[in-house]
């Protein structure tokens, strides 16, 4: 059995550097998000909050509920989710094309999921917090307030959604 011996200073430094590299590498991609296009706008939904991305199903409207952002209820992989219109919540016009939206992003918690329709969900992006841009004034100040930062992506920039703020707005909309 090998005997324990104290580490030399050089070994300690080497270890410290090795750890630091891991941290640096993590910092380089500390923002993970799922990209989604709604109309001509690109959104980045923090990956940790996304439950799943699925094929879109036509939502069932809810009687007596007329809020523009509330699309209805849908059975998504055996679970009933409330389907919301992200565009309406953000205040821009969009309607799913004739055959309905292509994809749905399911966000929130199991048993209390929110689904958002999107024209396409090409995948995830990862980036560093340092690369994020502040959202322009027209978006951050006069918009719905769900986007505080922009993230570079292949098509330009995607607005990183503040999921908590978005879900709070959803919760308000469904009771209206």
């Amino acid at each position, binding site marked *: 059995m090998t005997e324990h011996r104290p580490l030399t200073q050089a070994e300690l430094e080497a270890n410290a550097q090795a750890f630091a590299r891991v941290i640096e590498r993590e910092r380089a991609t500390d923002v993970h998000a799922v990209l989604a296009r709604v109309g001509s706008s690109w959104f980045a939904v923090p990956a940790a909050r996304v439950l799943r991305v699925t094929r879109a*199903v*036509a939502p*069932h*409207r*809810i*009687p*007596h*509920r*007329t809020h523009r952002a509330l699309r209805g*209820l*849908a*059975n998504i992989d*055996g679970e*009933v989710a*409330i389907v919301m219109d992200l565009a309406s919540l953000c205040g821009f016009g969009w*309607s799913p*094309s*004739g*055959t309905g939206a292509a994809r749905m992003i399911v966000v929130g918690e199991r048993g*209390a999921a929110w689904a958002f329709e999107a024209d396409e969900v090409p995948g995830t992006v990862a980036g560093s917090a340092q690369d994020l841009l502040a959202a322009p004034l027209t978006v951050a100040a006069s918009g719905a307030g769900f986007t505080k930062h922009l993230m570079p992506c292949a098509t330009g920039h995607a607005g990183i959604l503040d999921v908590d703020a978005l879900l709070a707005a959803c*919760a308000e909309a*469904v*009771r209206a």
Partner: protein
Amino acid sequence: MSLGGFSMFDLYKAEAEQHGRALSDGLVALESATDPKLVEPLMRAAHSIKGAARIVGFEQVVTLAHAMEDCLVRLQRAQEPIVPARVDQLLKGTDLLVQSAQVAEADVPAWNAAHADAIAQLAAQLQQPAAASAPVSDAPRSAADILMTAPAQVAPSAVAGPGTTEPSQPPAGSSTSAAVTTSSSAAPPAVPPSSTVAQPVHAAPNAPATTKPVVGESSVMVRSRNLDRLMRLSGEGMVEARRLEAMQVRLRAIRTRERALEDLFDRRRQQQDVSDLDLEQAHAAIRGEVALLEADLQAHLRRTEELSTTLHHEAIDCRMRPFGDACLTIPRTVRDLARSLDKDATARLEGQSVSVDRDILRKLEAPLTHLVRNALDHGIESRAERAASGKRAQATLRVSAVHQAGMLVVEVADDGRGIDLARLRTRIVERNLSTPELVARMSDREVTDFLFLPGFSTAKTVTDLSGRGVGLDVVQTTVHEVGGSVEVHTELGRGTTFRMRLPVTLSVLRAAIVSIAGEPYALPLARMERIDRLDHHTLEHVEGRLTARVNDEVIGLVRGGALLGLPGDAEGGTLAVVSLRARQRTLGVIVDGFLGEEDVVVQPLDERLGTVPHVSSASVRQSGELVLILDADAMAIDAARRLDEGTLRGAAAGSEDAGRRVHRVLVVEDSLTVREVERQMLTRAGYRVDVAVDGLDGWNALQRERYDLVLSDVDMPRMNGLELVRRIRADGRLTHLPVVMVSYKDRDEDRLAGLEAGATAYLTKGAFHDRTLLDTVADLIAASAG
């Protein structure tokens, strides 16, 4: 200190609850049997609680349990007789023991301090001879006391009391004239509520209102047998799923053989030496494999179906609890109440092991308690009255449950004085609820139904317990809520039976699936009168409103979409009408169509939505499609109210409806898929859409109905789109009707041909994928209207 995740205190709680219940049940049994042999288990229960309480430092419980144990020892040795006053004291002690099991560990010192006096007093009484220790003020649970803890309200009188001295009543002693009040002179007299409440035991701070533990939603008790079966079935499910792998292997073999056959064909085409026999052999091999695969697949399908059905039933069974769970407190309630009313009654429970859905069981408790109180207060006579009418001294209250024809039937029956129906009829007339002539013609069943009306009471004397005209209506409301019914059977002088019919489970219900405004909804069959398919032309117009003749009755119609606040009601040749009934009026709801009858598994509606009017729950159909389950009662009542208010209008004979002009679009398209896409798109955008399968069909529709826009394909059988447009433009009434042509043909000459024929706009089918189509439709309708 903890034992496998349970603290010592948790163990104490479990023990106190278990032995407390044993004490409570045992004491009630002991009182009627007065058999010292029944005492021993009670002694052991008290002893166990004492030991457990000592470990967790519950001093007052130790004192109390010790005094109770001593007292029980004397009863067992027959050193003193078993008398009701003594049983009262022991039950009071038991209540405190059970209550202690509800205390949080941190609150034990406070509980000890708060209850020290009461327990010292009770312990002293338990040491004294029984007779001396039963002072008047010590009646432990007077009627008023029970009333304080009774859920919501008390039951009304269902019975004409003997005090009314109807000629038909048997002669009774004069002392029975006030039998239903609590002021009877017999011992022990009930005390006024104030003095009861003032007693230290009942004034204890933070004392839970009931001794029943609050069951959280997060955990439910499931019989281990159920769980075992579920495990076994899910295991079988896994095995079945693996069989698919074997089938896949077989399928691959077929593929290989099929390729071999293809090779043979190729070689034969190239004139090589392949005989017919070779081909036949190769084909036979494939056929053999396919047959095997088919057999495998069929067996698999059958097994999977059986398995999933069994699994589903088993899962439902997990929701079941024995009916006895709802009856735990009944013997005690009967005993205490009878004693406080100076009546002699005993409870007989039947069908305790009958399985009941736990949701129904929970809802059943309040109505059961109401009916038990009602029976004791009004149904069961005083001792004197029973003696005078030659009945057995002790009255029996039977509470039973049985499964009958797929329903759970729960009965609360007493052998008391019964309901005087003649007096009930008089009362109905006195209350101006009906005319004497009508009441005389009513059946007994119809007459007893009045008992369930809110505010209806036959009791002349308002007692503390009942006769205030509330209660039975609450019973009925609760029973209706779960989709059940309640009725009364009574025989004067012999007794009264309340019979509740309830669904066995709330988790599955039989429903009609209908389409309203283009989407599926489920209507529980038990809650609707009927569905009729009616032809549009058989409808009659009254003041411009549609009416239908259903079952020899002319009923008014409302559109389902208008009632649910959804645009997009379909309108066409045949329509389905669902008849609902509320407040003696029948209402027809026009739905787009009747899609079939299904068992739907009820899922609660998402809590985040709050209450959605007319929708009770949701379900997922076998196709995976979501349906909303409608509350037919609420719809009918609400529709009647809104029609009265004028906020909902009956379906109009013309296209105009519900106050808002809904634009109508005719979709003419021979492809089913494209037609459906267009219909759904436009319906969702708020248009009322009719469809036609080709130009001729479309032309016929235009002769019958008026539309705001036509959306037409170009290439169609019988009459193409260009011909249709030409006809439209040639017709004087339709000259200005906007027509949008939609085609796959996107060449300029095609576009030109369409516009030359008279189309207002020409779009390619790619227009589905963005707003172009909807925008065009909206613009053109707006332009032609303006």
